[in-house]
């Protein structure tokens, strides 16, 4: 498909008939019953009854113990990515490695701690053995980390000779080796061009830090002193939580505490099932396109997540996803962790981080050998800047469409996509203003933006929902550490990007020049050829994330003249055409560069946006009259006064225009004829499911029939395909060739012209059948029915 890449090589002597999910060739997927050495005694006894009061007292303590693990890491670590951006996670796990609590940090890491711990139980209980005071370290994504930089520690807590539970954390370490500073090796084609993998090894043995193992790990790094500080912070976090758990056991007894742990998971599971019961059965999908498997590649690749809901279970697969390739892969551990993040945010928001109950009801069936469930020896180190956010985004889209079909109030919990797979990341290195080598990760995604929902606008620079505690560093903190000067850091405007009945919160842009050094090497940046953030249920897609560089500028002269440039367009000079994934670039004293974290997904048709909301944005300076006209068809004067009558006329004109411009429906239908007294179920913004004498059918709120259950309603829509850069001025990039491979599709009701769905899609790819309700009996997928356990 236009790619100059060939699929990843396979390692011949590891391939064979018996490829299993054991963490060697294929990611580790733990069996229902773990195979553990009989030498290791697990504590499983629990009190049959715990009174509701003691339960709450112990649950609350465990939750706080886990937070203390996180606080300790945050306090004592020194890499900004950990202490400020909260790129870490910590967990308490049951004796058999089920995650009980996670902290308000990077959510997708939580489940990987469970996988690693289960793997340790299965593979390390015999040799070297699992003993009191041990800590295991793992950076092998085929076992349980999301990429090598996210190195995980897990430590057993023993009680009277039995393994009672585990405490664990995962921290992003600044550099763990490999050819690229920062260890994101975006040109790798195999794992042998990646940082080394450390399958679980014993870093601490019965309480004593093993100098050989510590050095083995640190020796790989370009910044061993920094990594050592962070590693010690992570160890201190484990020590704190282990000691407190032991005190809890002394006080309340191990059987009572164990009963509380199990009951907390059971309660989380019940809460999750209750939510599932508000959602009809069906299958929902999201498809996100990415590009460039390695620098220079012109291929386009797909991440797809499909969620099937059948009764009280969810089944998640990645059918439709591209085969593994280049450096854009993640393993099973990453896939599962990423999918659980949006499920937790939209369906377990009230559990305070108890994610273990949720995962009991979600069955994962990804296709191996794909970019989102890669087999060895696919390189994984780049996953942190591409795949992991991409899978979170894909899973968010599928989850949001599912939740939007739920009965209220659950429906309003649906949350559009925050696709940071363009990530706003910038990794660079050089000599700093103090004459020392430095390496830095700047997280442009940290100011964040909360996407739109069915009930409200998103939140401007409201952080990242899937990293709840994330913070952006101050400009001054950056300038103190790195030889740069920030020209500006400002909020985007609410323009076409993320427009909708409810709009996304706005993102932010930041621009720099060098200061105190002569040059910098930039290792990682992302300049999107086209937006990758799909809109939700008729909403506009998110904006295009960009990284722009101008060379030979007159910025010095402008500063000398007393003006601080406030846009890259303002300075003279030559803009370097940057692509989604370029090679390293050098920045010099004449360079100006900027990074934009765009607005994310909008919800619903922008022509349905309430005029009061547009007025508010105009008055608060969040949007201009021109933007409001282009994005919303709103006619306003320069003072922000909206003309309701002219607006209505403009909107009517645009709805008519849509039907004139678009391709006719594949299936032409008439008016819906509902059964007397039957309720209409909202399954989108204007899309409904209606019971009729001919069975359940999709319809627009205007009364237009959009086809039967079991068919794609999009086939009954007028469809308009336009180039992606026609969505709005910000959607255009240098990468003409890549942009022209894609299109923007809008699906309109053939009667009223309302926009029911949008897709950014590769030209020629079929419509994504993303909503498939299974309200009628007998429509369940037999694959799911076979294995769906009864509750």
């Amino acid at each position, binding site marked *: 498909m236009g790619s100059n890449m060939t699929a990843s090589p396979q390692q011949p002597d590891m391939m064979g008939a018996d490829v299993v999910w054991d963490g060697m060739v294929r990611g580790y997927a733990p069996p229902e019953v773990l195979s553990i050495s009989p030498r290791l005694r697990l504590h499983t006894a629990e009190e049959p009854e715990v009174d509701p009061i003691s339960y709450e007292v112990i649950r609350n303590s465990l939750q706080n113990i886990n937070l203390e693990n996180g606080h300790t890491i945050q306090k004592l670590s020194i890499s900004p990515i950990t202490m400020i951006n909260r790129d870490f996670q910590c967990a308490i796990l049951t004796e058999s490695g089920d995650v009980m609590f996670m902290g308000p940090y990077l959510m997708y890491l939580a489940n990987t701690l469970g996988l690693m711990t289960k793997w340790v139980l299965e593979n390390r209980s015999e040799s070297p053995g699992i003993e009191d005071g041990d800590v295991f370290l793992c950076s092998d994504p085929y076992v349980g980390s999301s990429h090598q930089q996210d190195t995980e520690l897990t430590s057993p807590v023993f009680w009277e000779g039995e393994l009672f539970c585990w405490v664990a954390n995962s921290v992003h370490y600044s550099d763990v080796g490999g050819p690229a500073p920062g260890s994101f090796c975006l040109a790798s084609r195999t794992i042998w061009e990646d940082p080394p993998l450390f399958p679980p090894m014993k870093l601490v043995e019965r309480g004593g830090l093993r100098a050989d193992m510590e050095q083995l790990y640190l020796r790989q790094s370009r910044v061993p002193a920094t990594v050592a500080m962070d590693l010690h912070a992570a160890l201190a976090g484990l020590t704190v939580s282990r000691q407190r758990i032991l005190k809890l056991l002394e006080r309340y007894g191990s059987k009572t505490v164990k009963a509380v742990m199990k009951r907390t998971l059971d309660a989380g599971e019940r809460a999750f099932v209750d939510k599932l019961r508000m959602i009809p059965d069906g299958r929902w999908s999201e498809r996100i396109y990415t590009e460039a498997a390695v620098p220079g590649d012109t291929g386009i690749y797909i991440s797809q997540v499909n969620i099937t809901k059948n009764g009280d279970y969810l089944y998640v697969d990645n059918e439709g996803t591209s085969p593994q390739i280049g450096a854009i892969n993640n393993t099973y551990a990453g896939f599962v962790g990423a999918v659980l993040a949006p499920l937790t945010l939209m369906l377990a928001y009230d559990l305070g981080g108890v994610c273990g109950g949720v995962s009991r009801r979600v069955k994962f069936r990804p296709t191996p050998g794909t970019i989102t469930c890669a087999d060895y020896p696919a390189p994984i180190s780049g996953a942190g800047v591409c795949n992991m956010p991409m899978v979170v985004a894909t899973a968010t889209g599928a989850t949001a469409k599912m939740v939007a079909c739920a009965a209220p109030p659950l429906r309003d919990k649906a949350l559009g996509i925050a696709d940071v797979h363009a990530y706003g990341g910038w990794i660079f290195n050089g000599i700093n203003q103090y004459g020392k080598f430095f390496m830095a990760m700047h997280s442009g995604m940290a100011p964040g933006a909360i996407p739109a929902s069915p009930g409200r606008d998103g939140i401007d620079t409201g*952080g990242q929902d899937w990293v709840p505690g994330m913070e952006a560093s101050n400009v001054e*903190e950056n300038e103190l550490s790195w030889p740069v000067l920030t020209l500006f*850091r400002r909020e985007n405007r609410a323009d076409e990007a993320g427009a909708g009945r409810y709009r996304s919160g706005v993102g932010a842009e930041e621009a720099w020049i060098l200061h105190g050094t002569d040059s910098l090497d930039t290792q990682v940046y992302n300049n999107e050829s086209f937006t990758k953030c799909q809109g939700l249920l008729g909403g506009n897609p998110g904006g295009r994330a960009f990284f722009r560089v101008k060379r030979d500028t007159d910025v010095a002269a402008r500063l000398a003249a007393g003006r*601080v440039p406030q846009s890259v367009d303002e300075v003279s000079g030559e803009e370097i055409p940057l692509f989604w994934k370029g090679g390293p670039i050098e920045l010099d004293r004449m360079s100006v560069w900027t990074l934009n974290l765009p607005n994310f997904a909008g919800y619903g048709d922008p022509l349905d946006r309430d005029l009061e909301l547009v007025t508010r944005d105009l008055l608060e300076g969040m949007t201009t009259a021109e933007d409001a006209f282009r994005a919303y068809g709103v006619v306003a004067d320069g003072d922000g006064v909206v003309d309701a009558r002219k607006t209505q006329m403009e909107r009517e004109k645009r709805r008519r225009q849509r039907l004139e411009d678009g391709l006719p429906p594949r299936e032409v239908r008439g008016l819906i004829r509902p059964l007397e007294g039957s309720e209409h179920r909202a399954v989108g913004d204007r899309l409904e499911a209606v019971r009729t004498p001919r069975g359940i059918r999709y319809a627009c709120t205007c009364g237009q029939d959009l086809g039967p259950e079991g068919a794609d309603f999009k086939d009954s829509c007028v469809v308009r395909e336009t180039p992606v850069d026609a969505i709005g001025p910000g959607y255009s990039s240098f990468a003409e060739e890549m942009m022209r491979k894609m299109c923007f599709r809008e699906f309109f009701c053939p009667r009223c012209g309302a926009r029911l769905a949008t897709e950014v899609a590769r030209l020629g790819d079929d419509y994504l059948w993303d909503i498939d309700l299974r309200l009628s009996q007998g429509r369940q997928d037999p694959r799911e029915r076979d294995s769906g356990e009864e509750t």
Partner: protein
Amino acid sequence: MGYYLGVDGGGTFTDCAAMDDKGRLYFAKATTTKDDFAAGMFDALSALADECGTSVPDLIAETERFNLGTTVGTNLLVERRGARTGLLTTAGHGDAILIMRGTGRTAGLELDLLFHPQATQKPLPLVPRALIREIDERTDCAGNEVVPLDEAAVEAAVRSLVEDARVTALAIAFLWSFKNPAHELRALEIVRRVAPAVYVCCSHQVAPRLGEYERTVATVINSYVAPASAACFQQSADRLRRSGLKHPLLIMQTSGGVLPADKAIEIPLTSLGSGPVGGLMGSLSLARALGHKNIIATDMGGTSFEVGLIINGEPLVGEEKIIDRYRYRLSQLETTSIACGGGSIARIDPYSRSIRVGPESAGAEPGPVCYRRGGTEPTVTDADVVLGLLSADGFLGGRMPLDREAALRAVAGLGEQVGLGPTETAAGILRINNLRAAELIRQQTVVRGYDPRDFVVYAYGGAGPLHAFAFAQELGVKGVVIPLGNGASTLSAYGCSTSDLVLNVERERLFFAPFPADEVNSLMVELENQALDSMRDMGKSGHEVEIERFGLMRYGGQWLHSLLVHVPPGELTAEDLTAVVDDFRAMYDALYGHGAGVVSQGVEMVTARIRVVARLQRPTQAAQEPFNEAAGTKGRLGTREIFWPDRMERLESDVFDGREIGPGERIAGPAVVELPYTSVAVGVDQMLECDLFGNFLLRLDQPAGRAAGCAAAQRPAAGALLWAAT
């Protein structure tokens, strides 16, 4: 007669405390007047004059010191009633206060909400975008000018903000101004010339710390509250002067000290949130007399639970504060709070079938069910009433009868859902609430590397003395002090009255170890001179002023962590500074475990700080006449049945009128001591003793034979020495 007064006002009540020159203490309260702070203060003074047996004019005329703490500033901020404030900031950085570092949704939120994006929102902006003006100017991280200040633009911006946008306060916050304040100072001159009537302040003066977001927030909040705070301080000072006050009015600061009103008006931010600090200083003053070195000072009211720490005789200094999700950095005595108090609501978690308590609160309106003001969900106070810890007719000295039946119905209704009886449910609510209080304390101590067992809890505020017997037990602390007994509900006012003149002067400047002795010396001397000059302005100099030096230190790169390390006085040598670095490493290891630090990692000093204190003379508190054992107790009111949640037992328990408990008197639990504004619970096997200064000391594990009520077996006194120091 001379009086030493403290007032803490602006909340529901305005509290007063006074000590006369014989060392006797007096307390009084009055309802705060919403729109006229001074009126409420004079009501309270009138009540206080009654207590002292004098008139208001005589009381004021004879007052030697008048220290005032208020929540006026906090109220303005939380209710968004502050000045219409404009912001002048560096071109390109006007959005810093809007972006809020991406934490505007989440800063300071309870954990449970962090996983629930739909339940979060940013706060209403303190300065809307329309009132932010970006000025061309730039300074770099070394303090060098990169772009000169566009003075014409400053003037134009000020004119448009003042004349068109009608702002009444301005904040100036430029990048790196704490390294080089030249641009801010020049802009300040322009503002003063163009708009002399408008309040204005600069970020390098308000909060000279790294981090433009927090520094801008501090500056904006300062301007936002300044005009009304200044008016409040000024009006109070004027009215007091007209009423005959001979001395300057002193305003309580979050540094734990006071400043003259005319000085406090300059930067009102440092008096924001001084109420909780007043309580902490009151605890400190008493702790010195009692010989307690490590204190957990706790204030439990209707909705919140505030905790401050005193370590080795020194209150813990914090560097950061969050108000309404806005964060700023300011050196202040650290107090932390969670929503946990008498009004915390109990609910059933439907999935685990267990009881949750808080963080939702019924507050004062509608309040607990038993208040009969429309509350329907059971609260901690309702549980207190059901168990008998609070009596329905003894609340607030009998002025507010409580509806026990309604409380019982509400608690019973909750219990039924999980198969518990009303008593078990009420006991459970208290156990959970006490656990939450204990958890907060544990976080504040353990996370900093301290063991709560080395501490004494001071419990005050309306709901504190009633619940301390249980949460203190939960922590295993050495004992509990109900400071000043009946004065426990006005402890903040007492604390204000005991505070000295304190000034912190600091400069953020990065030094890498080994520190350059000459540069550190010249910086320390410069800061000391600055501090001493200010003290001289306040009439204090020479040996009246104590000087302390500190360095905020960390391992290279630890932006979120620093330790306050003492720096020796005088001319520093390289060896002195090496010793400072060694002290830091030793402190770090002591706090986070040996080996937590990495020897190869460099150590940095980020901030040099001078703290100058001028001790204000005051009488020593007079010891009261010891309790006459032969005459027996006068305070015993009788007995009532109380169900003790820690024991899960219903016991006939003694009830006392706390006002009649004399020094040396001991009360063995189970018992309740009722006071006009609070009650003290004495659990089973616990012993309450009144000391010579009217403090109630609660021993957690000390039954004793010589008790007013029941006798119990004598056990070895684990914490006995602790109490001997009076």
